[in-house]
């Protein structure tokens, strides 16, 4: 399995990923699995410009990312998969991608959300999606940056 890190973060590519996780994971590629960005020229350009030249980056809808990973498109690479939400992550797994552990890196406060950790706020639909991930045997590891401790949050979402 080439997926070295699957991360839920509503900022997708940003400083914590580039300055924290990329040096820790040393991926060959970052795959942004997001329907909106896959369809937005300027966002693809913007996020590409955030990534150091030695790391490849690709953008795909969640469905296409699932097909690419399942079809071994990245079999010779170590990849980081970035997802914007728990719901998108559930769609990736439902499409046949088997992930044992998912890094919950940042879900920010929105109207109606409840704080689980200072960097994890959940609305009802998100909690349901995380609960479903736990049912599928996924370990949810909340950790914003590699230098901070990880906290397993499975028991907090069921």
């Amino acid at each position, binding site marked *: 399995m080439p997926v070295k890190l699957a991360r839920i973060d*509503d*900022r997708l*590519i*940003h*400083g914590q990923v*580039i300055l924290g996780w990329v040096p820790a994971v040393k991926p060959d590629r970052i795959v942004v699995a997001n329907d909106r960005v896959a369809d937005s020229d*300027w*966002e693809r350009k*913007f996020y590409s*410009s*955030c990534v150091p030249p030695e790391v490849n980056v690709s953008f795909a809808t969640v469905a296409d990312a699932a097909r690419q990973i399942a079809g071994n498109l990245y079999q010779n690479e170590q990849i980081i998969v970035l997802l914007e939400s728990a719901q998108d992550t559930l769609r990736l797994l439902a499409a046949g991608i088997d992930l044992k552990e998912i890094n919950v890196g940042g879900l*920010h*406060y*929105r109207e109606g959300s409840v704080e689980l950790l200072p960097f994890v706020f959940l609305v009802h639909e998100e909690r349901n999606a995380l609960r479903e991930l736990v049912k599928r045997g996924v370990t949810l590891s909340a950790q914003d940056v590699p230098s901070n401790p990880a906290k397993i949050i499975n028991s907090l979402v069921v």
Partner: protein
Amino acid sequence: MTRTLAGTKMISAIVVTHGRLGAEFVATAHKILGDFSGVYSLSNEDKTPQMLAEDIEHIMEHAGSDDAFILLVDFLYGSCGHATLAVERNHRNVHVVSGVNLPMLLAFLNKRNEVPFERLPAELAARGRDSIQSVDTDQL
């Protein structure tokens, strides 16, 4: 929102940064230059890029309707950059300048009434860049 440059009365700035950097830049500029208006700060703390973009739009809507805006950003490659570029794309009189530092903000305050909006972003970028030097006391 469409505005014509002919109707532009004032150039405002929003300093968009991580943490409290923006608020402190503005507070420090007040200590140096005293009273001024039309300069705002926003933090990306606890916000998605979309929420930050909404906050920028909110400030713009409540400022003077003839204002043009320079968005000064600390670090382009992240939520501050994403949010400000998203706003810039939707407004004619908005321009993003990244790498904000104190000399750049002070230059904005000194030049916004002298330099046309079209030229101001490049001047601010140059001023911010010029202030970054490796200093050897023997060569001062």
